[in-house]
């Protein structure tokens, strides 16, 4: 398959994620949309990695492998972010019994 399909697919996922972050009001759903953005990037990185492998394999034997390595790092960091993010949401829920971000406007004034 040509690389364009992969680019379009992951850009679509990424934009769905962005729209979700900007429009949804539930903290957990916003968080899921952010994860969707990260996974769109993972997909794109793997596709690019394969593309660079096919074009450069005659020159370098491990061409494109760094793209796949990057994916692992994104997964690790995303896991760390989930741990911190969910605990922040839980802490908020304990105090307000809500995860609605519209509720959070105390700081404006």
């Amino acid at each position, binding site marked *: 398959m040509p*690389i364009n399909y992969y680019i379009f697919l992951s850009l679509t996922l*990424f934009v769905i994620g962005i729209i979700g972050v900007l429009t949804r009001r539930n903290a957990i759903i916003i968080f899921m949309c952010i994860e969707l*953005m990260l996974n769109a990037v993972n997909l*794109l990185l793997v596709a690019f990695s394969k593309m660079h492998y096919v074009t450069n394999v005659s020159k370098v034997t491990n061409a494109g492998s760094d793209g796949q390595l*990057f994916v692992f790092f994104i997964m690790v960091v995303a896991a760390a972010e989930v741990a*911190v*993010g969910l605990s922040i949401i839980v802490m908020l829920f304990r105090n307000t019994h809500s995860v609605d971000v519209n509720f959070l406007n105390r*700081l404006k004034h």
Partner: protein
Amino acid sequence: MNALIFSAVSGVIMMFSSFLLNNKNSVRVLAHVLLLATIIANIFELRGISFFHIDTRGMLEFDRFALLFTLVANVCTFAFFLLSSRDLEKIGNHYSDYFSLLFFILAGIVVSSSFKSLLMLFLGIEILSIPLYILTGSDKRNLKSNEASLKYFLMGSFSTGLMLMGIALIYGATGTFQTGITVAEKVPVLLITGMMLLLFSMSFKVSAAPFHFWTPDVYDGAPTVVTSFMATVVKAAGFIAFMRLFAEEFGSIRPEWKLLVGIVAAVTLFIGNITAVFQQSVKRMLAYSSISQAGFMMLAIYSLSNDAKEGLILYAAAYSLATIGIFAVLVRMKDYTFEGFNGFAKQQPFLAGILVVFLLSLAGIPLTAGFLSKFYMLKATIDGGSLALAIFAVLMAAVSVYYYFRLIQSMYFKTGNATISGTTTGFKYTLAALAGITILLGIFPNLLTNWLYF
């Protein structure tokens, strides 16, 4: 490498100290000793002696610029420890954990200021941000702190997503994560898009307009001690990473982004300064002032010359020292509004005098470090070919004098009973030493900038 390993190991040691040491004083002393060791190890590396020889596969490069900034960040953090470590106790029960998170942030600062690969940029920025999300929310029972931390977390991870998409597109265009790309005559669309996404996400991290909207809320809601660290050392680290990224990765396609960065700098200066004028709380005023100072630091990225590099280091030092000093006094005040400072000079003439030095430095009055760092920025901008931007920056600096002097006015020329608690003699002398450094750097900036060369 020295500073990276020392600060990461110190973070782990501080984590263990929470159950090995049951005395808060010893935890605090341990943190100071570990940070001092990190500073000394970093100075050794700056003098060419590295304790560790680790092959980073060209992903990290500890050049003098990175090492000097690490030194500045560590010394500012040490000043922060000396002034405010007792106030960290008041946030919550997990005293040693706060120190260990601060050490992890320092490790992130080293990585993000010495990256040679976009992978390391991403990891550095994340190592630096994730502990900050926790520190922002560390006042668990306070709703404002909770809200600030959630907002910071959502905004931060959103901008991380943008950054990763940018990196992926650049990888698609160039096939490598190493910085220092060379492009043929026609710049690929993927590269330009990736560059724009990275510009947006870095602007988020350093709170440059139009991506600054989270800053005042988060800085206001976070515990004041944490704000003091977040607005100074971490923000300066963001700028070093920003500068390194745009100098090394996108240096060859400079015409494509120069105008955009200039516009971002001008808008940041405008919004930061104009909004700061209308604030009633000193804490919120300092948050907006940090946005306007970010506008000045953006000028370094606009011009990218040697002067800009020296200026950015000097700016980081001058701005961090002054702001840490003001925040250290602010934490101890009862009332955070401007009225809360009325009559401060009558009660604490010594502290008020020191605050004046810091405020003058932030406003950029001659004989202080703030003046020279602004001067370097403006010189670099004019050499970079934009007189109009430099004139605009000077006008905005004139606006900033208004809100800094408003604080001086409340302290000296208004009557009231400002209440401050917990000022020990040691605290006063440390603040005086910071003010001394501010003036010293304002007269002999070479003391700092010479380290870049020998």
